[in-house]
């Protein structure tokens, strides 16, 4: 019986000679204990390595998706900022007499709409690429989150159960004992789960290694896209701040007489806008930090918390800019 069991369980060959001798010399109960102990060690050893790879892939997936979402949100805000600014400008130009005739005015508005349409289509195209990358990272996160170990553990448990039933059926004896004891079945199932987790972790590590160049290139491009959006928003914000300062803060104060009723509010708006403008530089730098993060990640640095905090800051800043734009 012991021989049969030994042949069937290839894991036995992985035990050290001393343990095998102990298994041979001892009774079945001792052998079974040794066997389960060996499995436990193997399970623990495999779990450690697998957990790191799985966690790294899961975190990277979540981070990449959050980054893609942040860039996309920046695109929306940049577009809204551009449209608002251009419309305000063309309104001023019209009022200032830039377009003398009806024909001039028509040309001007058609030209403006063309520019904005073109920009919107470019942002949409870019968004589609960013979404595809976001999809990749979301799939990576989902794959990492998938509990492959538990599924294999259950499947293997069922498999050993079926092997036992088959063995019993072949012996054609109602009193025949199962080939594998309950505890052995459970130990094998656990080991197979751990092996599956290890294989899963290695598969994720291979995926990241395989796609490292693609991810690196995409992060570089996303960084450029984010910097472009930040530049669009920043340049317009700066120009508006200058106008606000000159026309609504300084001019009324320098002029003699009573200050306008909304002067205090304008000064506050100016201060708030200046602060947002300074923070926009951070958003521009977030892309570059993401590139550095990837280089560090490839070198084995698993810390993603700094980058997650960075992205949250970018998101908060975009919300603040959007709120400010809507309030004006």
């Amino acid at each position, binding site marked *: 019986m012991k021989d049969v069991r030994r042949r069937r369980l290839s894991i036995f060959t992985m035990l050290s000679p001393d343990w095998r001798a102990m298994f041979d010399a001892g009774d079945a109960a001792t052998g079974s204990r040794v066997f389960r102990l060996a499995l436990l060690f193997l399970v623990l050893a495999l779990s450690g390595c697998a957990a790191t790879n799985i966690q790294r892939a899961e975190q990277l997936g979540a981070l990449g998706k959050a980054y893609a979402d942040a860039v996309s949100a920046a695109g929306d805000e940049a577009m809204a900022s551009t449209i608002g600014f251009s419309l305000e400008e*063309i309104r001023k130009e019209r009022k*200032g007499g830039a377009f003398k005739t009806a024909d001039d005015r028509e040309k001007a508005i058609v030209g403006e709409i063309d520019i904005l349409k073109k920009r919107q289509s470019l942002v949409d195209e870019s968004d589609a690429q960013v979404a595809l990358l976001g999809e990749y990272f979301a*799939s990576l996160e989902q794959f990492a989150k998938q509990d492959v170990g538990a599924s294999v553990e259950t499947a293997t448990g069922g498999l050993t159960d079926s092997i036992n039933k088959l063995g019993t059926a072949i012996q054609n004896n109602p009193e025949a004992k199962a080939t594998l004891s309950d505890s052995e079945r459970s130990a094998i199932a656990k080991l197979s789960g751990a092996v599956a987790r290890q294989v899963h972790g290695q598969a994720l590590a291979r995926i990241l290694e395989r796609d490292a160049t693609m991810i690196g290139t995409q992060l570089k491009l996303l960084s450029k896209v984010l910097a472009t959006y930040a530049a669009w928003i920043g340049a317009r914000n700066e120009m508006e701040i200058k106008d606000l300062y000159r026309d609504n803060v300084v001019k009324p104060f320098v002029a003699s007489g009573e200050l306008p009723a909304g002067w205090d509010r304008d000064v506050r708006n100016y201060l708030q806008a200046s602060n947002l403008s300074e923070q926009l530089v951070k958003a521009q730098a977030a892309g570059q930090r993401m590139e550095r993060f990837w280089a560090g990640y490839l070198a084995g640095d698993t810390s993603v918390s700094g980058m997650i905090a960075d992205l949250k800051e970018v998101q908060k800043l975009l919300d603040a800019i959007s709120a400010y734009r809507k309030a004006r």
Partner: protein
Amino acid sequence: MGAKTKKTTGAKGTAKKTAETMRAGKARGIAAAKKSPSPKSAPGSAQASRRTRGAVAGETVSADADTDEDLLRLRASTQSVFERLRDIDPDALPSDKTEEYWRDRHIARAAWEHAENAAFEILVDQQKQQLPVVSASNAKLAKDVETTATVIGVLNIVSASLGILASVITLLA
């Protein structure tokens, strides 16, 4: 009047060249504005008017622009021209210069927006070039997920088959 015509032509030239850049992906003969004095250092309508002329007419810098860096430079220079025009307080201009100022400001802004679009278009093109690579990675990842599911599925099928086989043998015995 001559100066005015020259000025307007210069600004329009910038806008036209920017449009060409967008179409061809190249800019030939980028018009960059000459540095104008700071509006803070020389207030006054006459000086403001001169600044308008200086900012828009500017000197023409010839450059071969067949890379995205050239487009970025074009974007920066057109932005700079527009910003300098914006720095001028239109209320401080003499009334006969106001329309001209707003016309120039419109042309400069349009040129800047075209240049921004052109620079971004290059970036979007680069993204598009990477599209097959990203799609391939997505497909490979989907296959990896599918393979894992298949392996677990096969394990379950084998288990079920052995169970059925055991039942059949028992029945036959």
